[in-house]
């Protein structure tokens, strides 16, 4: 194999240093982080109630479920033209693509989680007089916190993985934009640097998420041997 195609770790490190000091790598990271976070947040905000709706109301499920399964299979790249036409090339356009990706990854996990809630808890809540909304807020939401966290973790990965596509919409800065500019000029070191930065940021976010999630589901009786 041609060794020239894979930059050595040292070369990537050099590139890291020079981009950090001269090319504003931090700005790129920050921009991308902001976008992913915004997309993720909006995606989860939509996925939780919609996951509930389709997990809960059979008629809604029958109607929405196929729609969701159709749209979540569409490549985010395919959205770009639509997004450009309707939303232009600003920040919103990129966030919408990330939103799209995280929403669809999360909603299906949420929905399946809802379906696995033991019916006895819902029954108990009903006999205590809980309304549908109260059952949602006080039973479904806490019971699906573990699933929500799974959904969030899935969405997190998908979000970062979609970043490059999102930043195809005319991003000037950001890790995805950096990778694309670098690929246009076959600058492998920067490409790999960008990839590593994405992986590292995602990893950090995931670690943070797991710390939070351990707190939130401390009530769970987990298997450990």
């Amino acid at each position, binding site marked *: 194999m041609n060794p020239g195609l894979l930059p050595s770790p040292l070369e990537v490190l050099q590139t890291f240093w020079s981009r950090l000091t001269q090319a504003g790598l931090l700005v790129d990271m920050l921009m991308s982080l902001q976008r992913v976070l915004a997309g993720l947040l909006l995606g989860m905000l939509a996925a939780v109630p919609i996951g509930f709706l389709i997990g809960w109301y059979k008629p809604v499920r029958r109607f929405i479920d196929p729609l969701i399964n159709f749209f979540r299979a569409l490549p985010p790249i395919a959205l770009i033209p639509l997004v450009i036409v309707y939303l232009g090339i600003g920040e919103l356009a990129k966030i919408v693509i990330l939103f799209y990706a995280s929403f669809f990854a999360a909603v299906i996990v949420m929905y399946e989680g809802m379906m696995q809630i033991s019916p*006895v808890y819902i029954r*108990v809540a*009903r006999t*205590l*007089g809980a309304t549908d909304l109260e059952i949602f807020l006080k039973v479904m939401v*806490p019971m699906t916190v573990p699933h929500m966290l799974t959904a969030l973790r899935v969405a997190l990965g998908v979000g970062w993985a979609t970043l490059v596509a999102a930043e195809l919409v005319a991003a000037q800065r950001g890790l995805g934009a950096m990778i694309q500019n670098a690929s246009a000029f076959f600058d492998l070191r920067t490409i790999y640097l960008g990839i590593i930065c994405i992986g590292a940021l995602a990893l950090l976010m995931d670690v943070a998420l797991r710390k939070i999630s351990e707190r939130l589901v401390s*009530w769970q009786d987990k298997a450990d041997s």
Partner: protein
Amino acid sequence: MQESKERIRFDNVSMQYQTPAGPLEVVRQMSFSVNQGDFISLVGPSGCGKTTLLNMAAGFIRPTSGAVLLDGKPITGPGPDRGVMFQEYGVFPWLTVEQNIAFGLNLKAGGKRSAQAKKEIVDRYLELMGLSSFRKAYPKMLSGGMRQRLALARTYAVHPEFVLMDEPFGALDAQTRSAMHDLLLEVLHAEGKTVLLITHSVEEAVYLSNKVLVISARPSRIQEVVDIPFPYPRQHTLQDTAEFNALRARIHHQVMREYAAQEAQASAGNAN
């Protein structure tokens, strides 16, 4: 106890479950009513359909034919007027002991109460159930009997008009159980509640109820309705009287016969 207003009525109720091996007839044309202030116990062999009947009164399932009426109207769903204590407890694992008890109080249906009033109710039941020192614990840290008591507290805390209970004391030792009996009678005596209790302890049934329904083996019918003539409030000493033990023995005997029938049927393997 005087004759009083009919509240819940099982009117020619039948129930069939759909199973992979075909329909399973569980309840056959059963009729009985629960009057205001009644304490009715259902006893009968395991698997005869007691939980099924309770679920109908609670509003979770509907009979295949016949009707279950509350004040003359068919029951269409669960409601806070009918507090249910489930055989599997259904203690919320994500809430602490005190949050579990307060759950119903914090619902809209629980009505408006001051935080102080709620706290008092919670504290009272924590103490009555012997769970005070576990108020901040999650259910996974409780023993089986403690979970059962927690479920009881949660049901009592909302003060439902009807209390429907499915083997609510099964996981308790004799003494705790006896204390729970006292508590139940106290709560009822004080507030005139109507109770439907499923139990395997004939002694418990006789001690607590004004009426015991002996249910037959599947497909179940009412084998016998035994009126319990002892006046409320009742004392523990009642259990040592000859009348009490005679009644108990009679019902015991009745259930025994039922069991034999169930046995025979199961061995024949004709139900499914």
